[in-house]
């Protein structure tokens, strides 16, 4: 119980390192989820609204990739950006860029697949209404997204929850470098292995709070749809 008290004290003290670790986590996750949304939302729509040969196969692959283990993504990107890899000359290993690339790959299938699912459940009257009122081209798609913003946002939040809580990619590609690539999850992992539970527990509590917040927001968004 003493550890728990210490953990709360740490959170309330506003310890600069703790704050920095949280901000780093949020920054990485936010950038990777924004990038994955920019690619995944149009892709999700495209896979539902346009028919092309091999579409089903693409969907099967994307759905399988949702379960991608974080360490496999870490390993894959590591092999690309390591000194000896094809992108080695860029010197990306153990930088925020490497973490963001890994998280992007991790979460893109999740956002794409969930958006595809939400588009599939779209009210059939929506596209009909848009067309009969004369919407076409980019305006048509803009309206589809606008009308479905709640369910699309909930797909994005689900992806955000996945990246903020993952440890494999951040550890393997970020290297847990203090004041640089150290995130909530890599810190918890490190502190626990050192046998120092206070900071780890404090970060764990913060992570749980973020999870609750995400769930709460998702519920509200879907309810107001």
């Amino acid at each position: 119980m003493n550890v728990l008290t210490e953990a709360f004290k740490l959170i309330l003290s506003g310890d600069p390192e703790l704050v920095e670790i949280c901000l780093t986590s949020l920054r990485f996750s936010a950038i990777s989820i924004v990038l994955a949304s920019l690619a995944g939302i149009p892709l999700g729509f495209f896979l539902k609204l346009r028919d092309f040969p091999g579409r089903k196969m693409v969907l099967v692959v994307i759905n399988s990739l949702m379960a991608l283990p974080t360490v496999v993504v870490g390993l894959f990107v590591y092999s690309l950006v390591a000194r000896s890899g094809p992108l080695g000359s860029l010197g990306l290993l153990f930088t925020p860029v490497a973490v963001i690339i890994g998280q992007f790959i991790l979460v893109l299938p999740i956002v794409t697949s969930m958006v595809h699912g939400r588009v599939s459940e779209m009210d059939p009257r929506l596209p009909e209404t848009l067309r009969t009122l004369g919407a076409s081209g980019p305006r048509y798609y803009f309206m589809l997204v606008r009308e479905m913003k709640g369910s699309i946002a909930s797909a994005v939040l689900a992806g955000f929850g996945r990246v903020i809580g993952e440890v494999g990619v951040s550890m393997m590609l970020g290297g847990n470098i203090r004041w640089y690539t150290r995130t909530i999850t890599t810190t918890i992992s490190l502190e626990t292995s050192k046998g120092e539970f206070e900071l780890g527990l404090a970060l764990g509590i913060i992570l749980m709070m973020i999870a609750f917040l995400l769930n709460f927001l998702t519920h509200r968004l879907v309810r107001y749809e």
Partner: protein
Amino acid sequence: MSDIICRIRDLKFAYEPGVPVLSIDELNLERGGILTFRGHNGSGKTTLLKVLAGLLPVSRGEVIFNDGERSVLVQQEPYLFQGSVKQNLLYPLKFRGVSSGKERSGKIAEVLEFVGLGGFEKRKARHLSGGESKRVAIARALMAESPVLMLDEPNANVDRATSGALEELFLHLKASGITVILSTHDDRLAYRVSDRIVDLEGGVPFQHYETILKGSYEYRDGMYSLFHLQGTALSCPSRHGEYTTAVLSPSDVLLSKDRVKKEGYNQLDGVVEAVSPSGEDRYIITVNCGFPLRASVPGAAYELLKPLKGMKLYALFSPSAVHLF
């Protein structure tokens, strides 16, 4: 009035191969007035409206609209966009790339007033009642400034009062020069508002030869009351209510060369206007009694009457054959 806005030729439509939903050899839609497609559920009404609105691709045949004619479909349960009523009404303008300006607000207020929802601008569209939603959808369709407005089952799931208000609105739309196309399975709505009714059964349109008369009803205590037409009055069943329309089935109308003595019956004299076979050894004879009255006569009676255009005939029908709507 008789100018044609859309021609349908050899139209076939099927959602799945081998299960035809629509099969129309020839149908012309005229400008102005109210046209109603009447039929039971599954008769192809909604599909036909969607085909006319260009929402469903035609698998065979042609649907040709006159150049520049656009139609807007208001669905049975309209989909309203998120946001306010005003936002909903602005979208059709945005879709057409109409520039913003002060006229917009004026136009919105005017259209809302027209559908009986004056002052509803700021209301949340998704929080309206069923009848109000329908009217917002009609107002939104009017903002698209389409000369043809189609409404699928407009009075499904609305109460009697709303139904009456919608009826008035349709007549109002017609008076403002918009061509209104309705689909319904409700005889009352069909008879009261339509200028033309096309019945659909199994996706096939067929001609009905009913006589639809507009007039005013005068209730009388007793078995029979009066339905006033221009220049004449028909004896009809006594029923409380507001009626604007009397309908006569052609098979309820008897024709005779001479006046027949039959107590209480409606008897009108007129001249034969048209004669056409209607299949199964029956003929449709249109007699002008101040209004065109259609009678369906069997082959034997046709032989006896030998009706020719311009010939004088008496039309006879019982008061109970006069159906009020």
